[in-house]
């Protein structure tokens, strides 16, 4: 009998331990998503881990001090992870995030699906927020049926960056509006065993490889679709552009294209391992930072290279939006307005340094004397390009959507990813451009048919 009792009590206590673990887990999970007992609200913010967002996290204390009762919990993710995580959460109405950073591509699609909170009233009724100050092309991309669904945190176009010392040493001169043929020529002349002539993204992903590549396609006269949603992915212009791009990388590009994205190219240029780099205008801030870069002050910035068009920059913005499923919409609105306000720019400037002010979201940014002074190497050209970009018709021919380096349809993410993965084989010589694009054409046509 005694033995029996001990056994039973052992079993019971084990059960209790497990039970309390489970209950403890539940309580822990519940406690941090919902409000505390005293009415405090904790906002969960999912963000891409770019430097500008890290600055935001660093400064969130100021917001929490100004808005007692609201706490902000940052979840940082790498861009691809963020996209997967947020898309899946918003699409399944998971409701795990109160604020998300979303790209210019997702905002119109999600807004049409009714996944994002309409921010028109709260911004337009707020004179201090000055919604008309937002860069017009950026704001247009975040607006669906005259309603604003996300607030731009920073915006960017693309430009060509080059190492002035290397150009001087080789006796070359970079024009302000170079053509791709000139750039290819420079790249081949500047290429050495240690230095890549040019760094161009090759990392698979519609937002990685296809950001610069689509602008090349467009300036070569190609595009994803014609005006009637017929896919043109294996049209001669598209094929020529992709062939040009991959050949240029193979002949004079970085050594490991498939692992090269923004970061890798940034490292290459700022460590003097690349002579040129065609990428986001927002890269300039990091290149001009002497703590991270050995080429600060030695880099020149010019317009995106062209062929058939006069301009060729892309248009992108990282924005703050509030999913419809957020449980704390009011607090979330307060936060997204704070983080995209003029006041926030001042805060970054005084606390962290003026060159770290998030660029390309507000016109007035380029009127702040301290910023213009701190960023004189790249601020004027950034503004010039941002205003020159035409998201309604970036290529030679008209297109049935608004957007430069992406097609604003839900299927594009998958389409771009698949083709860019196959293009990885082209860089490695395991496949050729025509084969990949013929396959891509079929996928693109299926997606295009769904839009007709």
């Amino acid at each position, binding site marked *: 009998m005694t033995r029996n009792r001990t056994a039973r009590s052992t079993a019971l206590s084990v059960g209790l331990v497990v039970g309390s673990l489970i209950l403890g887990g539940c309580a822990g999970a519940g406690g941090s998503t919902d409000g505390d007992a005293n009415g405090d609200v904790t906002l969960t913010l999912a963000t891409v881990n770019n430097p500008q967002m890290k600055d935001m996290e660093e400064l969130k204390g100021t917001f929490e001090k100004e808005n007692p009762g609201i706490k902000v919990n940052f979840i940082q993710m790498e861009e*691809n992870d963020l996209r*997967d995580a947020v*898309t*899946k959460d918003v*699409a*399944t109405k998971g409701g795990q995030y109160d604020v998300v950073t979303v790209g210019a591509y997702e905002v119109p*699609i999600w807004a049409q*699906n*009714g996944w994002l909170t309409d921010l028109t009233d709260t911004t337009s009724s707020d004179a201090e927020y000055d919604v008309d100050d937002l860069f017009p092309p950026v704001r247009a991309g975040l607006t669906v049926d005259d309603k604003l669904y996300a607030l731009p945190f920073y915006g960017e176009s693309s430009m060509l960056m080059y190492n002035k010392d290397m150009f001087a040493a080789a006796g070359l001169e970079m024009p302000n509006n170079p053509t791709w043929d000139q750039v290819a020529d420079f790249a081949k002349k500047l290429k050495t065993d240690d230095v890549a002539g040019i760094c161009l993204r*090759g990392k*698979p*992903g519609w937002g990685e490889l296809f950001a610069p590549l689509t602008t090349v396609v467009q300036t070569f006269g190609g595009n994803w679709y014609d005006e009637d949603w017929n896919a043109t992915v294996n049209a001669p212009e598209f094929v020529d552009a992709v062939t040009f791009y991959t050949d240029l990388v193979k002949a004079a590009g*970085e*050594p*490991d*294209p*498939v*692992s090269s994205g923004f970061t890798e190219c940034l490292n*290459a240029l700022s460590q003097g*391992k690349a002579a040129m780099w065609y990428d986001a205008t927002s890269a300039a801030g990091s290149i001009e930072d002497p703590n991270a870069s050995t080429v600060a002050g030695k880099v020149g910035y010019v317009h995106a290279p062209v062929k058939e068009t006069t301009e060729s920059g892309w248009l992108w913005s990282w924005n703050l939006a509030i999913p419809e499923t957020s449980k704390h919409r009011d607090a979330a609105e307060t936060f997204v307005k704070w983080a995209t306000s003029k006041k926030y720019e001042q805060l970054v400037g005084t606390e962290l340094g003026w060159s770290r002010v998030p660029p390309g979201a507000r016109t007035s940014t380029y009127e702040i004397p301290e910023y213009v002074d701190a960023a004189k190497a790249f601020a004027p050209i950034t503004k010039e390009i941002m205003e020159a970009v035409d998201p309604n018709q970036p290529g030679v021919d008209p297109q049935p959507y608004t957007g430069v380096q992406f097609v604003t349809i*839900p*299927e594009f*993410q*998958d389409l771009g*990813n698949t083709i860019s*993965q196959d293009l*990885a*084989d082209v*860089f*490695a*010589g*395991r496949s050729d451009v025509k084969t990949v694009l013929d396959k891509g054409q079929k996928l693109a046509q299926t997606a295009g048919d769904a839009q007709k």
Partner: protein
Amino acid sequence: MTTIIEPVEAIADVEGDVPPERLARPATRKGIGVSRALLWPALATSLVLTQIPFLVTIYYSLQEWNLLKPGDQHFAWFQNYVTVFSNGSFVSSLVATVLITGSAVILSTLFGLLLAVLLDRRFRGRALARTLLITPFLIMPAAAALIWKWSMFEATSGMVNWLIGLVGIPPVAWNTDAPVVTVIGVLTWQYTPFFMLILLAGLQSQSRDVLEASSVDGAGPARQFALITLPHLRQYIEIAVLLGSIQLVQVFDPVAIMTRGSGGTKTLSYLLYERAFVGLEVGEAAAYGVVTVIVTIVIATVALRTLFKIFTEGTR
């Protein structure tokens, strides 16, 4: 010579599930009832957690359902299966999975065997050597993939290119030219210790008498290894391969972290993930899932029932 063969046969005797003396006990009705009661919770848990989701997956696989197009969900018969079989992704992923799993298992077995043999002798610092060697198996796969990608296989600053550069080999653009090698490399690195541990235990369970007797009989080390040690190790190798394959066939972490499915590394697990959570094609992804499970079950059953003695002999 007979002394050499005897122990091998002796091992064959215990290969079954239950030693004979246990079977000799009368299987009373009550005994069986109690056994069933003891087994039931675990079986039920396994059923609920693994089989029910699968049944629901079958249901989803008959739906046209893209999460990006809410309100457009409807029954679609076998449309998703047509997509699965017509676009070729499944076959190439199956090939990738077999190639990656197979290579990693074979390489891990070979390295594991080599290291086990090397460690099965006395030398200075043997305990330390074993401790260091098992470490890769203990490293979190996500951490391993990240470190290998950024610190080892990186084209310009990676240690692999630096090391091969020391012996005059030009740098390799790993992620561009050999993504499959990077994935197999990391998996082999992680699983070699696992294979080594099992094989080392096998080596150490070998009776010294037999080995001594055979060397007295004049068998050289190579002959001894081939004739005595390898047959003795067979069941250890089998079980290592079985357990290793179970883990490796599901490979996801290094693919998701290192290559994102490019360059022939899109394994079935990654394909399923990508269809479901990047493409957000619930129906299509479910169809891939169903086909994957059927194929895996067929391969696994054939492999288990034919290759592994443990499921073919003894018991009952």
